[in-house]
């Protein structure tokens, strides 16, 4: 009996515990055919990236273990050691090759233009899209490609955080085309009816694995394994299984096995200096700060305007008016602003198709109006009763009392919390990137993704936010001092 237990233990540990783990990171939200949860058993993953990772683990004599990470964070995460290799549709870019230890490319894809079926043949090149709105996933080669096309061909670039909404917006008419990897385009056309993809590619790219900068020894071993699996047809088999094997792959495999092209990419990548890259992004950051400040000021103005009405209604209104306004305030305060933005932009798109900036302005403004109204209500109720009675005995009507005495005094009480809210709004405005408005934080994260580091973009971004918010706090502080002196 004892022997059996021992044997079992040995067997189990040999099979499992003692086999070293190979951790690989990717984003299961990226979905099929990259990485997705198995519909039959959601605890298991499937996808061609999953199988490539399994092949690498096998070659290393290790057991693969998946680490979930959001797509845009793969580079940062592998660098800080959350896993050994990041791979789920990770594109080969000069920045990545500079910042991280990159493997040889293992798949060749193409950036293709997708449009509504009725536009078939109309937009076969980027140049044909002059003055039209083209969407893509932010921080990708396709995004970079569109940014340069914005200058040369006058297309309007709209950046998304995911690769599902661009196609939905294309269908609904918010976009006229989407530029993304052919794999994603094929998948999306299956999901969204009535689309057509131009077969002639706009650009070519490759998927690679990325490892932390110092991890070149492991990288070289991974490269050997990938080459071996290309030679023996294992990769082809995997790609065929996932229907992504196409006419381009044989030539691509041949060139990789030749080993020349990968080196070239490294050299050409290193040629641009980091300082040039940073300088290239400064105008974009300044433009994004302008959007942040304009959006924040407009949203705050809306919040103050609506907030005053809500507060007056809640203090002076009839019972049904008070009840309605209370419901509004509680619903808006009790649900995430992110959800409200989604509902305004995507949820209502079948009824009214708001432009992204307007949806952002309304979302933030109406959300903050609820908070402002509570501040004003509290401030109105904090004005001493004697002040109101004195005004009434002088013959002022109730609306004059509000306008000439109660309102001005309440405003002075409300100023400090209002300033607080404005600074909070300035920072909350970064949330609107989920509905494709590129403001300061979003621009910074695109910047960081492209140069592969958060250090410089992070510092620049923080500095810009401070430049925006500090004068505001100081101005409010000064007004407060003046009024406190006037009322104490």
């Amino acid at each position, binding site marked *: 009996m004892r022997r059996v237990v021992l044997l079992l233990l040995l067997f189990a540990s040999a099979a499992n515990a003692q086999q070293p783990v190979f951790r690989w990171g990717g984003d299961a939200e990226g979905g099929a055919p990259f990485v997705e949860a198995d519909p039959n058993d959601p605890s298991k993953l499937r996808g061609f990236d999953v199988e490539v990772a399994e092949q690498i683990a096998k070659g290393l004599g290790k057991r693969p273990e998946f680490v979930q990470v959001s797509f845009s964070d793969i580079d940062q995460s592998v660098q800080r050691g959350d896993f050994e290799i990041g791979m789920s549709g990770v594109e080969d870019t000069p920045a990545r090759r500079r910042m991280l230890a990159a493997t040889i490319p293992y798949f060749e894809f193409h950036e293709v233009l997708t449009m509504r079926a009725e536009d078939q043949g109309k937009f076969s090149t980027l140049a044909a899209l002059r003055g039209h709105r083209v969407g893509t996933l932010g921080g990708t080669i396709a995004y970079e490609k569109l940014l340069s096309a914005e200058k040369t061909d006058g297309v309007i670039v709209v950046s998304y955080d995911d690769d599902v909404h661009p196609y939905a917006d294309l269908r609904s008419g918010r976009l006229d085309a989407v530029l993304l990897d052919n794999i994603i385009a094929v998948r999306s056309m299956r999901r969204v009816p009535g689309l057509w993809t131009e077969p002639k590619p706009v650009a070519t790219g490759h998927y690679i694995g990325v490892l932390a900068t110092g991890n070149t020894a492991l990288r070289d071993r991974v490269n050997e394994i990938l080459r071996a699996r290309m030679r023996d047809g294992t990769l082809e088999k995997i790609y065929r299984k996932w229907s992504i094997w196409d006419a381009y792959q044989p030539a691509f495999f041949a060139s990789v096995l030749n080993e020349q092209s990968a080196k070239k990419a490294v050299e050409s990548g290193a040629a641009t200096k980091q300082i040039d890259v940073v300088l290239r992004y400064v105008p974009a950051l300044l433009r994004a700060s302008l959007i942040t400040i304009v959006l924040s000021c407009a949203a705050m103005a809306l919040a103050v305007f609506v907030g005053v009405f809500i507060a007056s209604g809640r203090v002076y209104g009839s019972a049904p008016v008070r009840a309605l306004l209370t419901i509004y305030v509680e619903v808006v305060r009790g649900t995430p602003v992110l959800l409200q933005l989604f509902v305004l932009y995507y949820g209502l798109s079948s009824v009214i198709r708001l432009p992204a900036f307007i949806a952002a302005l309304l979302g933030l403004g109406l959300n903050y109006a609820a908070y402002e109204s509570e501040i004003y209500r509290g401030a109105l109720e904090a004005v*001493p009763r*004697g*002040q109101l*009675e*004195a*005004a*009434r*005995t*002088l*013959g*002022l009507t109730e609306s*004059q009392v509000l306008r*000439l*005495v109660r309102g*001005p*005094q309440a405003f*002075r009480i409300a100023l400090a919390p209002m300033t607080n809210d404005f600074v909070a709004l300035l920072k909350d405005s970064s949330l609107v990137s989920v509905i494709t408005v590129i403001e300061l934080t979003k621009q910074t994260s695109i910047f960081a993704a492209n140069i592969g580091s958060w250090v410089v973009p992070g510092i620049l971004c923080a500095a810009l936010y401070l430049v925006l918010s500090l004068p505001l706090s100081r101005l409010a502080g000064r007004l407060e001092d003046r*009024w406190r002196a*006037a*009322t*104490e």
Partner: protein
Amino acid sequence: MSILSITNLRLRRGDREILRGVNASIEPGELVALMGLSGGGKTTVLRCVAALETFEDGDIDVGGVMLRPGPQPPRATIRELRTRVGMVFQLHYLFEHLPVMENVTLAPTNVAHVPRADAEKRALELLETLGVAHRRNALPRELSGGEAQRVAIARAMAMEPPLLLMDEPTASLDPARRGELGETLVQLTASGRTLVVTTHDDDFARDFATRVIILAEGEVVEEGDPRQVLTHPQHEATRRLLQSARKAANG
């Protein structure tokens, strides 16, 4: 023809009966001192006349404007009442966010629609009469108690109400200031105004009032010539009032 006539005024707040049938009739040009121990209902009477309180029974006739029991009187009645009755609060309640001059001109420009220049000219005259013209640009918080009180009087006078109610104007004043205030009030009555002033100060009442009304536990217990009533009190409540005033003066 009285300018203010209060008949059987009753007011209850919760279980407490605050006024139990107050009767009073006041003639134009009088300076009436309304006296009584704290909690006797003096301030409540003034607040009823200014329509800041609703009451349960009785009525108030301010030169033809009738206030009756029940909820807030109609807006037209209130508007009419405001042209006849002004009020100066014990704590003044100057508008904290406005300088002295604007405190005085706020109602004339917004209610009576007097042009700003005229309103300011009149306000300056009032402030000069009351001796606080030099403080016209100050904010209420920068004023002394006496100054604030005179600004509050100017603010009420700017609307030229025939009847002016003053709640405890002597409370925050030292004896010299009290004399000045008395002279000012006498001048106001000389120009045809009627004043009803609540006070604890029997010397003030003796020196300046034309009549005193003693209120105790929500009723008028005694009234008449101040020298007569306050020198030879007929009612127990009046005697207690004088004792407590003496104690306060000595203590």
